C-alpha cells in the first residue's frame, strides 16, 4: 500500500487533489481510498487530505499516520503545523514553493530522507500561467508522480480531464505536465 498525505489550506483544492489521485490510481486498475480531514467548510484553515493506493482491497479507515509521501500545498504550514509527523524514513516529500529546501528551513527533515526523494516545485506559479488561478493542486499531482513514480503521468492527466471539462481541464493538465517535467528534470 502507498499512502499519501496532503497538507494545505481550505480553498487550495487539497481535498480535490486527493480525490484526483485516487481516480488516477483507479484508472490504472488499483484500489484507492481518498478522504479529507473533515470539518466545516472554511477557507484558509489548515486542511489535510489522504489517499491510499493498493493492488488489493483497502479495508483500513484510520487517518494516514505514517505516510509514504507528503504533498505540501502551502509552505506557510511547514513551521506551524506538524506536517511531517509519521513520514516514513524512505518517504517522499513534495513542496509547493519556488524556494529550495534550504530556503524553506527544512534541511533536517529533508536530510533524513533518501536522495532524490525530495522536491520543490513552483506549482502556484505554474498554475497561474496555465489556468489564471493560483490553484496548485493539479500541478502538484504532476510533480508527485514525477517524484515517486507511484502512477503514470497519463493516469493523472486522464483524472484531471475527467474532473474538469473543456479548457479548464486542458489548462490544469498542462500545468500538471509542466510540473512533472520540472521535477523530472531535477
Amino acid at each position, binding site marked *: 500500500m502507498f499512502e499519501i498525505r496532503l497538507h494545505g489550506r481550505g480553498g487550495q483544492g487539497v481535498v480535490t487533489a486527493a480525490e484526483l489521485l485516487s481516480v488516477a490510481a*483507479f484508472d490504472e486498475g488499483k484500489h484507492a*481510498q481518498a*478522504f479529507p480531514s*473533515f470539518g*466545516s467548510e472554511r477557507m484558509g484553515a489548515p486542511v489535510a487530505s489522504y489517499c491510499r493506493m493498493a493492488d488489493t482491497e483497502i479495508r*483500513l479507515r484510520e487517518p494516514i499516520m505514517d505516510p509514504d509521501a507528503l504533498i505540501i500545498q502551502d509552505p506557510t504550514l511547514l513551521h506551524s503545523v506538524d506536517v511531517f509527523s509519521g513520514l516514513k524514513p524512505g518517504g517522499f516529500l513534495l513542496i509547493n514553493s519556488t524556494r529550495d529546501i534550504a530556503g524553506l528551513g527544512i534541511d533536517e527533515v529533508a536530510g533524513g530522507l533518501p536522495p532524490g526523494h525530495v522536491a520543490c516545485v513552483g506549482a502556484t506559479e505554474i498554475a497561474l500561467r496555465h489556468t489564471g488561478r493560483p490553484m496548485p493542486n493539479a500541478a502538484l499531482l504532476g510533480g508527485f508522480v514525477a517524484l515517486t513514480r507511484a502512477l503514470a503521468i497519463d493516469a493523472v492527466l486522464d483524472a484531471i480531464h475527467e474532473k474538469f471539462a473543456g479548457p479548464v481541464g486542458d489548462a490544469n493538465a498542462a500545468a500538471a505536465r509542466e510540473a512533472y517535467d520540472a521535477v523530472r528534470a531535477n
Partner: protein
Amino acid sequence: MLRQIEGSQGIAEAVALCRPQVVCAYPITPQTHIVEGVGALVKSGDLENCEFINVESEFAALSVAIGASAVGARSYTATASQGLLFMAEAVYNAAGLGLPIVMTVGNRAIGAPINIWNDHSDSMALKDAGWIQLYAETNQEAADLHIQAFRLAEELSCPVMVCVDGFILTHAYERLDIPTQAEVDAYLPPFDPVQQLDTDNPYSIGAMVGPEAFTEVRYLAHQKQIDALEVIPRIAAEFEASFGRVAGGLLRPYRCEDAETIVVALGSVNGTIKDVVDAERAEGARIGSVTIGAFRPFPLAELHDVLAGAKRIICVEKALAPGLGGILASNVRMALRGEAQPVLTVIAGLGGRPITRASLADVFRRAEREALDDVTFLDLNREVVGAQIARAAGTRGSGPIAENLLRALNPGLVHRVPPNEDAKQ
C-alpha cells in the same frame, strides 16, 4: 459499472436506481452530498417521475415522506445526528403506521457538545423506534444496502434506516460498482403497497388505540422485526445471486472458526479491525471479528452461534449509554445469555476520534492477558479527566462539561476583556 466516486454520490445513484417517487431533503452535515446528488439527478431528468422537495426541517422531511408513502409513493430521505432527533416523533410514527420509507442516516455524534464528526449516537438513540437498522461496512455496501432496503421495507411494510458512517464513508472516494437500471429493476419491483389511501376504497389511518388493543399492536410490531431476521438474509442472498457480491445480511464473521477472542463491531471500523485481526493472527493470536450488519432486529441466535465457542468477546462501539456502558455490548451480552465468557466494552471513535490499528491491537492484547476492564474508553486522556474529577470532588460541579474543562485547564481564563483605560481619552 466500476467508478471511483465519493461514497455519498454512490448512495445517491443507488437510491436513484431504486426509482423513488418522492424525495425530501433538509441539509445537515454529513448527509448533504447524498441529497444534493439525488436532487441533481432529478433536476437533470436522469431520475424521472420523482418529486424532490426542499423542506424546512427534518421533522418536515420525514413527515412529507410519511404522507407520500401513505398514498403508495416510494419515498426516501436522509439525515444525521441532531436532524434525526428533530424528527424523532415522526420516526416512531412512520414505524407505527407501517410505512416502508427508506432513510439514510449519515452517522454523526449528538450534542451537547455539538460535534459534526462520526459516531453512532444518533442511530442508537432511535434504535427501538421500530425501524429496521442496517449498518454499512464499506461504501460499496452502503450503496448496495439501499437497494436491499427498499425491497426489505416494502416486503415487511416497515421503514428501514441505512446507517453509513459520516465522513469516514460519506466523504471518502472509493471504487464502487454501481449497477445498471435493468439490474436494479430486476431485483426491486415497483412499489405495490399493502395499504394506501385511495378514494375508491377510503379508510382512516392513524386512529388512537387504547389500552384494550395497544399491547397487541406492539406485539405485532415486535413480531414483524422477528420476521425480518429471516427476510434480511434471504434478500441478501438474492442480492448476491443477482449482483454477484456479498452485501447486507445479519452478520459476517471473519476468521472466527477457532478464535479465542472475537471482536464485534458495527460499520466502517470493521475494516480496520480486520487488518488488526490479520496482523495479530500473523503473530499467533487466535482472534477473529464479526461485522454486525443488522442491529435491529438484533440477530441473537445467529450471533450466539458464532460467539459461543470463544473465550472472550470485545465489543468495539461508537456509542455510549452514560451510566451503563456499552449499547452494542449490552445487546451482544443478551445474545450470550446463559454463557459464561466475558463481553468487554471498548468505547471508541466518539465524536470522530480516529480508531487506529495501534490502539486496537493494544486493547486486544490486554484482553488476551485478562488485563482489560469491563468498559474501556479507547485513547482516553486520563490526565485531563483525572484532573477534572479531582477538581469536581472539591467543588459542586454544574454547567457544560466541555466548558468546565477549559476553565480547569486555564485557571486564569477570563472571558471578559478588561476595559482599555487608554481608550477613554
